[in-house]
């Protein structure tokens, strides 16, 4: 086997441009596959990280009735804050939130909005809630950039907010947009208006009540408390996992095509080699190789394209990966309304596992593609091969 590697290396290097063309194509596959997978991993990491920092913390407790996909559940999704949560809330490790459906009237237009009450002094989430302490003669409110764009509201804009309190009575008040924050998490931005929790409780006639809680304690097995059930971070980010899985499948098709092109080149080279190098094959046999050893030699030769490609990919790929992980990849379109936590610039993350698994897949595929045509050698008659007469 050692000889096969030595000879295969000599043959490949000796073949010159033909080898390098294949190696360049294959190395390109290496780099693109690793980079794209890195982007997906980076996106997954960024999306979950942003959700954690902006919305869910290490997990949430939801009111039993609460279903974010069913607007009808919102009205009844509230209950008094359980005493068990109060120490955590006081330490700033838990943030209660109260939700209600409402309507805003920017420039006389009617626009539905989810009103969310959150303590102004919370520091667990990155939402700039301290702005809710601004002194105004109306209710101070903050919104995200997407909401600001869709409602044509600016910092300092005043708009009428209407809601229905717990008794079913419609009420309305003017709010002032005291801050517009930028986030990649659409679920806290799109059609959301954030006001102080105490104001919200007062307006809804729901003192000391909340819809859900985000907490900082990562303990997974927290039991349900009163009307509130645990939603782990894993459950809350399941949508991202599902999206990444879907994207990953889509990308797999792309990898397959990319690999297929590279493999076609190698397969073609192998077929051509076996026909062009009949005399060489016959010579190997005459000099003492068994036909099976020649098959191994040609297979190793083909598979070594992948080894050289990995080396070449490392030469230009590693600097590219490092550069990309620093500057990131900016998506050439507006990602704010994708409905997913997608940052405009995504930073790829490469793991050893990702690089090793990609290398292994490419190496195995190349070996199979190299072996396939090389099997023909085992059936060759060496005397005819020596004369180069096999058709």
């Amino acid at each position: 086997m050692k000889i096969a590697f030595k000879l295969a290396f000599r043959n490949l290097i000796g073949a010159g441009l033909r080898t390098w063309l294949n190696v360049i194509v294959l190395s390109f596959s290496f780099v693109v596959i690793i980079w794209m997978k890195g982007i997906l991993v980076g996106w997954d990491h960024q999306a979950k990280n942003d959700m954690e920092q902006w919305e869910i913390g290490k997990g949430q407790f939801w009111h039993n009735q609460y279903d974010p996909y069913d607007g009808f559940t919102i009205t009844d999704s509230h209950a008094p804050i359980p005493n068990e949560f109060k120490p955590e809330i006081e330490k700033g490790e838990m943030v209660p939130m109260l939700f209600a459906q409402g309507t805003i009237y920017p420039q006389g237009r009617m626009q539905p909005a989810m009103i969310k009450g959150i303590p102004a002094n919370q520091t667990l989430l990155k939402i700039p809630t301290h702005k809710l302490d601004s002194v105004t003669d109306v209710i101070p409110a903050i919104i995200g950039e997407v909401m600001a764009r869709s409602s044509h509201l600016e910092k300092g804009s005043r708009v009428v907010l209407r809601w229905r309190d717990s008794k079913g009575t419609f009420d309305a008040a003017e709010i002032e947009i005291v801050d517009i924050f930028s986030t990649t998490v659409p679920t806290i931005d799109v059609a959301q208006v954030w006001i102080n929790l105490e104001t919200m409780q007062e307006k809804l006639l729901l003192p000391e009540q909340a819809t859900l809680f985000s907490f900082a304690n990562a303990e997974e097995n927290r039991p349900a408390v009163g009307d509130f059930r645990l939603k782990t971070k894993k459950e809350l980010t399941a949508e991202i996992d599902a999206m990444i899985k879907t994207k990953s499948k889509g990308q797999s098709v792309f990898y397959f095509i990319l690999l297929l092109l590279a493999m076609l080149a190698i397969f073609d080279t192998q077929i051509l080699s076996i026909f062009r190098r009949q005399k060489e094959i016959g010579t190997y046999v005459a000099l003492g190789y068994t036909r099976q050893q020649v098959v191994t030699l040609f297979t190793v030769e083909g598979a070594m394209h992948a080894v050289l490609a990995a080396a070449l990919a490392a030469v230009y790929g590693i600097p590219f990966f490092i550069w990309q992980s620093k500057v990131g990849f900016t998506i050439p379109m507006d990602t704010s309304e994708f409905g997913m936590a997608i940052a405009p610039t995504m930073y790829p993350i490469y793991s050893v596992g990702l690089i090793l698994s990609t290398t292994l897949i490419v190496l195995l595929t190349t070996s199979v593609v190299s072996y396939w045509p090389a099997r023909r050698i085992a059936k060759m008659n060496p005397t005819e091969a020596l004369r180069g007469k096999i058709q």
Partner: protein
Amino acid sequence: MENSAIIQINQLIKRFPMGKGEFTALKGINLDFGTGEFAGLIGPSGSGKTTLLNIIGSLDMPTEGEAVVLGKPISKLSSKESAKLRKESLGFIFQSYNLLQVHTVFENVEFPLLLLDYTTAERKKMVMDALEWVGLTDKVKSKPPQLSGGECQRVAIARAMVKKPSLVLADEPTANLDAANSHNILQTMLNLNRELKTTFIFATHDEKVIGYLKRKIFLKDGLVDHEEWINQ
């Protein structure tokens, strides 16, 4: 015969499928070759000389009869055993040299040694010795496309001789060479035959080669027509 028989051929028949029928290339050959012979199978195209050489070289199998080479019955050898025989004891020289084009002269000559258990230092010495026999020590790093036909054939001889095999089989070794190169090559082989006592068997119809042979075996239509021994 100069010494004890290293090749014994008994009633050797070789048939090849041809269309719906068969073509009989060898029709019952009986021959013995001894150590240190410088012999040639002579005959026109289709007389069976290359077929016989291939069977002796265990590259092909007899249809009937037997060829015992260095004590090994060719028809009974497995693929691995025949490869072992070629690897350890046989050297081949071909009409079109059959050098590995992308390898240097050194690497081409070194190739048979890679298959045997020699150290790098041993291989280097043996290759340089073989290249000295054929006068190509100055072409060590050249590749076959950079060499003349005569030089290529001398590399092929060095490759065949480097492991000092018991038997060298040469199929039309001078067919692609001019007269001067042919004589040069043949003189080299003759010297090696004398110095190393290696048995050389040629398949040829080249008069230049025939002139150097000590034993001439004339084949005609797959049979030995007659033999001539030259006393030198």
